[in-house]
């Protein structure tokens, strides 16, 4: 796997802007005000922000080399496409086997469907990385 969003916790200040941008990016309207105040259900962020004392950072799908989620999925709904781990929401039935095995806790529960970071496939670089004010988040493509 070649695409990864990495958080350098020495630089992460815990502002959680990554989550805000992620929510807006994946919302219906794509508008911050509508996304946060007027859409029926606020689109959840794909980022998982975590903090321990001064250590903090965000975790998203790391596109593992040999993803455990793919092996555990009871529906064969998780695949590698374009060097990215993708969840086929048509197939997903919400058995949460992926949540049981993801070592980073990067897969989230939606309405009977699992979802996770899609690495903003339609952007040059993921929106969280582009908007991280202290450049704690970086995007590795190799």
């Amino acid at each position: 796997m070649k695409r990864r969003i990495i958080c350098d916790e020495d630089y992460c200040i815990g502002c959680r802007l990554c989550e805000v941008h992620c929510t807006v990016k994946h919302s219906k309207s794509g508008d911050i005000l509508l996304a946060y105040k007027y859409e029926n259900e606020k689109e959840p962020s794909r980022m998982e922000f975590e903090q321990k004392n001064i250590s903090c950072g965000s975790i998203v799908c790391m596109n593992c080399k040999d993803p455990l989620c793919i092996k555990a999925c009871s529906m064969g709904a998780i695949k590698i496409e374009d060097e990215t781990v993708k969840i086929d929401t048509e197939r997903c039935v919400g058995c949460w086997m992926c949540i049981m095995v993801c070592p980073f806790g990067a897969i989230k529960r939606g309405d009977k469907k699992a979802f996770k970071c899609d690495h903003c496939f339609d952007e040059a670089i993921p929106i969280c990385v582009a908007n991280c004010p202290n450049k704690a988040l970086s995007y590795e493509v190799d």
Partner: protein
Amino acid sequence: MKYIILGNGPAAIGAIEGIRNYDSKGEIILISKENCIAYSKPQLYSIIKDKTIDDIYYRDEDFYKINKVSIILDKSVNSIDFKNKLVFLKDDNIQYDKLLIATGAKANIPEIKGFNGEIFSFTNINEALKLKEIIYGKDKIAILGGGLIGVKLSEYLNKIGKEVSLIVSSSGVLSSLGDEKISEILNKVLVKNGVKLYLSTKVIETKKDSKKIELKSDKGSVICDVIVSCKGVKPEIAPFENTNLLTDHGIKVDDHMRTNLEDVFAAGDVTEVYNHIDDKYCNIPILPNAFNGGYCAGLNMAGKDHKIDTIYPMNSLQIFDVQIITMGLLKPSEHDEVLSFYDENKRIYKKLVIRNGKLVGAALLGEIDRAGILNNIIRSNIDISEIKNELFNDKINFYVIPRSIREIIVKSYTEGIK
């Protein structure tokens, strides 16, 4: 190179993917006694309600074609000549270079005194479709066995309006998980949703007349139209009995999924594998183990030297509106430390079992998010003496793990280093 795969479940699919990772040319022949492509057994219950087999296929229909696999469906293996590397079907025999046995497990069906009718089961698509047909127009279903299959089937039959009597010999459902609290919570959930639950109950005999079946137990009588046995599964090893293949509670395999015979591998529910936490060989019939075992076998069949990951039981299940994830060992021994918490109102339960400073088991009910972080801690054998309280009291979170170890974890998963 000619590979033969017996079976068509997750272990077989895993093996195909494993082989094709390193050998794009070798001939793969898959033989299955079922007459359909691979489907998801954990989702078999949905057939009872509104889904069809097309909805629960485990891989796309063109999977076999893409991977250049010849599939022989609806054919049973009669016997195998391991010496001459021949698989005998009813009217044919096929030579192999490498063989994978992934024939799965079949239902245990008890004999009940005085009953000569059919006891149904629910472990494969044929059994599921047959049951679906037979229960049409019938109201009262008795299910024997409170394991995962029995409980899930009770839930689905209840959801389509059947009167379900679940008869369990132990004092709680899912007792094999080894966690009394989970059993206790689920007992209540089943009863609240209308399942008639008979605990610590043993069926002694039955009486059948033209209309009803009466199941007599030590706790009274249950009247029903249909009996379904969900008393676990046993490895499908009949064709290999009286051969040199080493079997006990399944085919014995090593950490490369090799059997005791050369060029013969086995994976999935048919095997007996080494359980790293319990430190003994046992049959662990769960999907991730089947796929992983098959994948590992496939790599080794194709000539790689691949060792299987740590193996232990794990489960993710939803019973009505209760979500549960369990992993590892939940029944502590005397010297183990147990941290557990239960909030009855919020219906949240969390339990960690710690042995010699290492996490060996965890159960989460209600709040299951990020459970994989705990699973990774078990798998990686990380010492949690310093962080156990945080791990238990806080929301499960990756940053609880010390930074130096976290960095190793990231590296190992992203770069595939063990």
